[in-house]
């Protein structure tokens, strides 16, 4: 009797094991391959074409390994299941993201490499020295992790961005006007100034950034009541969500702020990369894609030129990351032209683009995570 039970157990165990192994293999061959993962915002590996040369170099097997894990049946479900399990057993950060209070996902940044930081700071100083005719200014935006410290999990030891901003300011040449946006944002940390599922600031956060930048850039910001707010999305799952498919976190909403009593008719946005023109800051068709933040200026480009009807006679050159995309519509109220440069893609010398002088501001504006992770800021010394 007992022996029978053991035999049956053995058979079932072996059967289930073999069935699971073989089943997934058959399933993965049977299911069509996906070409792109919107959740991860990357192209998935396709079945590699065989060549002896690639096999010899070990590249073919490497691609095959990536192929089978990228195309594993139910990949996203497995990942969100894993995240849910980790959250359930009390893990406080998953795949580099803190599971914060109030459903906030916050970046868990590594301590920056001091050398890289110093190189970036020196490159900016050199850039200002190389172009004495430019009015170079600099501002840094703290990440949500630094501003929303109250939402961090208990005992979390996040990078001290405030101290780092202080160090950067110290390292910079004294004649470069510098502003930390930390105080301006921190004062409003009770409001929704950062997305819960994305690393960017919300449009409201960008508005407070715009207010804080007024001193540095020399304009008087418009009060919040001068804008009407339009909600364009309530289903935004951002980059931080994608890091672990955190299915237990609700989506974000995306708002646009429109100046009251004005229309956008006289706005002209030119994406120089592919020479396309738009008559709005907002590309609403991006809402059909996964990254709703791309509604602002259509996402990342090397060089974007904004022409406005502000009539102030002033120009702004922004050397920036994507935080500036939602900031630009506010700044447009005070400049005739805004030029946005993304150093990751912009490969030219600035002298062909910037004349310099009293009516042109050059603002270097980065959020802290990209400032100490980005490898292209150092190129400024040669531009």
């Amino acid at each position, binding site marked *: *009797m*007992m022996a029978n*039970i*053991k*035999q049956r*157990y*053995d*058979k*079932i*165990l*072996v059967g*289930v*094991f*073999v069935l*699971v*192994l*073989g089943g*997934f*293999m058959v399933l*993965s061959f049977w299911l069509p391959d996906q070409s792109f993962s919107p959740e991860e915002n990357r192209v998935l590996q396709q079945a590699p074409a065989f060549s002896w040369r690639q*096999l*010899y170099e*070990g590249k073919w*097997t*490497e691609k*095959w*390994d990536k192929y*089978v*894990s990228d195309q*594993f049946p139910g*990949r996203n479900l*497995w*990942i969100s*299941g*894993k995240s849910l*399990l980790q959250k359930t*057993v*009390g*893990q*406080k*950060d998953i*795949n580099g993201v803190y599971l914060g209070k109030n459903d906030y996902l916050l970046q868990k940044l*590594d*301590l920056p490499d001091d050398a890289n930081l110093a190189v970036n700071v020196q490159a900016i100083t050199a850039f200002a020295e190389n172009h004495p005719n430019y009015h170079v200014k600099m501002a840094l935006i703290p990440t949500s992790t630094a501003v929303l410290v109250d939402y961090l*999990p*208990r*005992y*979390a*030891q996040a990078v001290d961005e405030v101290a780092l901003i202080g160090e950067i300011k110290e390292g910079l040449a004294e004649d470069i006007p510098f502003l930390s946006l930390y105080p301006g944002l921190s004062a409003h940390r009770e409001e929704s100034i950062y997305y819960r599922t994305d690393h960017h600031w919300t449009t409201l956060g960008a508005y407070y950034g715009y207010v804080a930048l007024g001193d540095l850039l020399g304009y008087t910001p418009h009060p919040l009541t001068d804008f009407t707010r339009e909600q364009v999305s309530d289903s935004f799952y951002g980059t931080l969500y994608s890091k*672990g498919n955190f299915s237990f976190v609700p989506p974000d909403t995306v708002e646009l702020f429109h100046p009251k009593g004005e229309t956008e008719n006289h706005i002209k946005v030119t994406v120089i990369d592919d020479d396309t023109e738009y008559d709005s800051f907002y590309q609403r068709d991006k809402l059909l894609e996964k990254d709703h933040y791309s509604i602002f200026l259509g996402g990342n480009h090397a060089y974007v030129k904004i022409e406005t009807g502000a009539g102030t006679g002033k120009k702004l050159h922004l050397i920036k990351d994507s935080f500036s995309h939602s900031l630009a519509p506010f700044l447009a109220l005070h400049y005739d032209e805004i030029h946005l440069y993304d150093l990751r893609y912009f490969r030219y010398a600035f002298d062909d683009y910037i004349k310099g002088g009293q009516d042109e501001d050059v603002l270097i504006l980065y959020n802290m995570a990209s400032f100490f992770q980005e490898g292209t800021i150092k190129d400024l010394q040669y531009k």
Partner: protein
Amino acid sequence: MVFSGINFLFYFLPCILLLYYLMPRKGKNFLLFFGSLFFYAWGEPVYVVLMIFSSVVDYLNGLGIEKNRDKPRRAKLFLCLSVLINLALLGFFKYADFLISNINALLGTALPLLELPLPIGISFYTFQTMSYTIDVYRNETPVQRNFIAFATYVSLFPQLIAGPIVRYRDVSEQMLGRKESVSLFAQGVERFLIGLGKKVLLANNMGFIWNELLKIPVSEMSVATAWLGVFAFTFQIYFDFSGYSDMAIGLGKMFGFTFPENFNYPYISKSISEFWRRWHISLGTWFREYVYIPLGGNRCRKLLQYRNIFAVWFLTGLWHGANWNFIIWGLYFGIIIMAEKAFLQKALNRLPDWLQHCYALFFICFGWVLFYFEDGRMLGQYVVTLFGGYGNPWWDGHCPYYLTSYFLLWLAAVIGSMPLLKNLWQRKLQSVISKNQSVQYGVLLSAKGVALLVVFVMAVAFLVNDSYNPFLYFRF
């Protein structure tokens, strides 16, 4: 290929199992041999030649020894040839650069390094093939005339990459006369899944904690955090390596093999001598059989005994990696074991059990620090931090964070390092069987099956998520 990868689990393994059981008896070794070559050549297509070379050489040397039984000098020649070729292979591919850089440092020369990638598993298969020729020479195992059977033994994919180091004599009969069965296969599945869980769920996550803690500059690390890191690595290396051995033993069973055990709860040891009887047993056995005892073991003068211990531990350290820290690590244990032999064990016996455990664990954990840091300066800094030498605080926020965030992981690792669950399970099973309670028996087995399946599903979820999946013992 690694066991804990999607490609192995869901492509290679089902295919080779299917082919193996479809294949008639005569072709089974042939299939395993070619399957193993495929497994090895995956990502390392060139070095497969090296393994085939090693197999051919030792196959021929084995025959040479057998043919010259009545001419001891000639037989010995074949043995020496085998040992020399194996050691030369190992020396060239694993230790050449270490030797060159030491010569450069010593003589101020600038000889260029070879910078050859280490052939995977070379430390394991050269030791295995040497065990064969030595045992044939000593007449402890019959010679293998079937080349495929011998080559299958050398290249057998379950134990090819990270052991256990299966001596030929332990499997000589199984090479041609093994018998697969459902019950053995089921044991294999159990063992494999337990190993997979140890590796993917425990070792990888412990490794993650250790890597996170290493990002903290030593100057800002508290003493408690430094120790927490050491504990994380201590668990990582145990579950990584013993998990791999479990998977190897389990896979072996699926193909009808029974491999020797490699670990026996090493962290419950009460002395360092005991630890090394429980840790990487197959390596310890190898060095005892083929180095320590031939040198005279402990049946010689006291001074020679110490020389023998020194030699074995120097070599044990060196085997783990071509770097001074591994040699220091080996000698560190050698010295402690000599001390235990000489006087320490007697003193320890008078202490309460828990103090003996503390003693052993302290030296084991500290040993892992020597093992981990290949860079002497970083090792020095970490050791100073461990003992508060920089005036660092005793406690900081990292400690409670990693303790609370991974509370269940720490708990699972502690329980998993002890035979607690295994003993409970066996006692329960025994009592149910002896009372002939068939319903309870069925329930118990079902519970075990479900638990294993849950471990499997969780491990797959982590594997799908993780590109972070390094095998620590790859380097050796």
